[in-house]
């Protein structure tokens, strides 16, 4: 008896092993093999050949993921020739999967990225230039601000279609402004003195004017804007060397460090958003993705352009951008279905903006009545107004290493170490520049 049970268990385990190994290998053929299964919509479509399946990957999580999933669903319902399958996990995970699946048909047909990823993946020949396809998608360059359109080009060739763009702006707590005897107009500063005056007025016992957190990605982004305002540049023009360890870079960083030393910003702040929502700070510099959160909090707030304190106008910006991964033997049908889907997505990007807060990059969409009628439109102006002078991060393969999204970014760490008073400004920037040069070599 005992033996019989044991034998049964062994067979069961062996069986599981075999099934487990076999399944992944057969996955692709399952759809075509089971012709008798008519309950499954996808299977049915594949066999009858009416419907083309397009896979779409993104690194969106939380609310953004929901919004995009709903949008894709809408596309699937509106027509019955193309079925888009949407898959989204965190950015780092999706890129891991993307790398593993690259150049095979198990990868996506459409993938959402940030412009800073474009050169990395075009360099590895994992995404293709979209120059010849833009016409088929019904998209035209004249619908975008030059800064944003070119921010998605690698060596002059278009690798990404920006669906949105996200520069930074100040979110101000109007109640605290009122208490200090200020209005939203006062937050539109044009010099360091004006900025300091504003912060002076908003700083009082236990209350800070502005947030400057230990989120190194954000502090890097602020500094990136101020660097360009001061007339500096991040890399040399041919993108071969760091160019930020200059007077301008120091000036920009010293300005930010002074927020803490002057007492305008809390020291070593952990969460700038929570402190602003909790009324500890009067202003916070955030991207448009923060608009829905701020609105849901029920606060009385407004958005104002990113402080322009030096000679030129500049603000850091990025996009979510649509890319086309490379793989051989892609069906013509899939290509045209992909183009149709991308075109539709751009056209309907106001719906993406409606819930995610992101600003539509396409000017036709941006000026459409549908977008203007949105409740959050009044907060979008501060982001829309800066479209002409948004500065994108340089598009070269090293950006993924020294850009804000990498925890090891030598630049972001240098910026943070100065703000927290742990390093000397010019030394920190020099060291960071050395590391960047090493990466670029």
């Amino acid at each position, binding site marked *: 008896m005992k033996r019989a049970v*044991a034998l049964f268990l*062994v067979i069961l*385990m*062996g069986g599981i*092993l075999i099934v487990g190994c076999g399944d992944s290998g057969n996955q692709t053929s399952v759809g075509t093999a089971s012709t008798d299964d008519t309950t499954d919509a996808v299977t049915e479509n594949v066999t009858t050949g009416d419907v083309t399946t397009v896979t779409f990957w993104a690194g969106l999580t939380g609310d953004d993921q929901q919004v995009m999933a709903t949008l894709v669903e809408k596309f699937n319902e509106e027509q019955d020739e193309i079925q888009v399958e949407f898959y989204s996990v965190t950015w*780092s995970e999706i*890129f*891991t999967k993307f*790398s*593993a699946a*690259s*150049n095979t048909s198990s990868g996506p047909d459409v993938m959402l990225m940030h412009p800073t990823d474009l050169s990395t993946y075009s360099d*590895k020949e*994992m995404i293709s230039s979209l120059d010849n396809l833009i016409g088929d998608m019904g998209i035209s360059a004249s619908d975008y601000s030059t800064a944003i359109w070119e921010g998605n080009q690698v060596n002059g060739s278009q690798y990404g279609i920006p669906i949105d763009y996200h520069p930074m702006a100040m979110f101000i707590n109007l109640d605290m402004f009122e208490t200090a005897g200020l209005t939203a107009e006062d937050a539109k500063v044009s010099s360091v003195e004006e900025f300091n005056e504003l912060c002076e007025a908003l700083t009082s016992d236990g209350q800070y004017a502005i947030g400057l957190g*230990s989120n*190194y990605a954000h502090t890097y982004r602020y500094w990136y804007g101020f660097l360009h305002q001061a007339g500096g540049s991040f890399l040399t023009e041919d993108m071969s060397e760091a160019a930020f360890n200059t007077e301008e870079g120091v000036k920009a960083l010293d300005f930010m460090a002074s927020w803490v030393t002057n007492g305008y910003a*809390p*020291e*070593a*702040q*952990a*969460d700038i958003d929570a*402190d602003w929502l*909790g009324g*500890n700070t009067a202003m916070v510099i955030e991207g448009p993705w923060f608009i829905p959160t701020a609105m849901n909090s029920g606060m009385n707030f407004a958005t104002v352009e990113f402080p322009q304190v030096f000679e030129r106008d500049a603000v850091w910006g990025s996009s979510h951008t649509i890319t086309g991964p490379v793989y051989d033997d892609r069906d013509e049908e899939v290509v045209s279905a992909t183009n149709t889907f991308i075109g539709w997505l751009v056209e309907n990007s106001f719906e993406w903006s409606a819930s995610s807060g992101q600003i539509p990059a396409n000017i036709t969409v941006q000026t459409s009545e549908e977008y203007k009628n949105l409740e959050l439109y009044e907060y979008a102006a501060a982001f829309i107004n800066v479209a002409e002078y948004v500065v994108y991060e340089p598009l070269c393969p090293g950006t*993924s*290493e020294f850009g804000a999204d*990498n*925890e*090891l970014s030598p630049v972001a*760490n*240098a910026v*943070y*170490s100065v703000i*927290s008073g*742990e*390093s000397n400004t010019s030394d920190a920037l020099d060291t960071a520049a050395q590391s960047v040069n090493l990466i670029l070599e």
Partner: protein
Amino acid sequence: MTKNSIWNKRRRREIRFLILSLTPFFTMLFIFKILPIFANFYYSLRDIEVQTSGIFVGLKNYRMLVNDPLFYKVLKNTFTYLLYVGPVNIVFGFLLALLLNQKLKGTTFSRAVIFVPYIFMTTLVGIAFRWILDGNSGLLNHYLSYLGIEPVYWLTKSSTAMLGIAIASIWWTIGYNTVIYLAALQGVPREYLEAASIDGANKVKRLFKIIIPCVKNTTFFVVLTTVIYSIQVFGQVYVMTSGGPNYSTLTFVQYLYIKAFREFKLGYAAAIGVVLFLIILAMSIAIFWLFGDHDEFKAKRMKRREKFE
């Protein structure tokens, strides 16, 4: 003769059955554990682009590692973590076990309380401690302020971030050592203790002369696992600081993770893995040697020599 052959047949069948039973497990173990370990050595000698098997570059990855300033930071940080967590986890783990081994009221409850954190997920511990250790509104700073201590920016200053992670880790893992020690303490023969107290040995003497030597094997196990786990610390760092601020909490596995899965430098990451492996191997050998019974070893050698002569 016949009896023997029946026995043999039976035994052979049993062995066949055993092999059959173990095959699934060992297949999996080989594919997912043993093979990757050796593959890792091989990968560390290659320059690997994502979708290819890469090209052979010899020791280039190791040369780069030696010239990488971050590598030394990572080494220092990992050992700092070990120094913070190791001694506390071992010594206090033992002291807690001593305390819980007393016949007092509520020890069962206390045992549960001390062990429960260990079964929590790292993510949970990390996020909870991120709140507790928050510089401006954290719980810990709130209580410290009653003692007149200025707010400490635990996780957002590079001088204290590793300490913050160590605090969370100690709270999380000390229960494991305590439970192991508790089991060992209950195995200390009571006769020894009674005999010693009759002979007039006081509590401290009994602790050092009887209890600690009796749990020596457990101490060996606890030290070994604590060192290995500490060097491999990852989850807490990943959740609480991602290696920041200013690289101050960047540990080995976190560095390896970023190199492999953010920057896709798989060959380089494999080289980091090999170095980590060698460090752990060296530490383990050192611990084995430290706890090895040298007297017994010497005695054996002497005996052999005597025989020889």
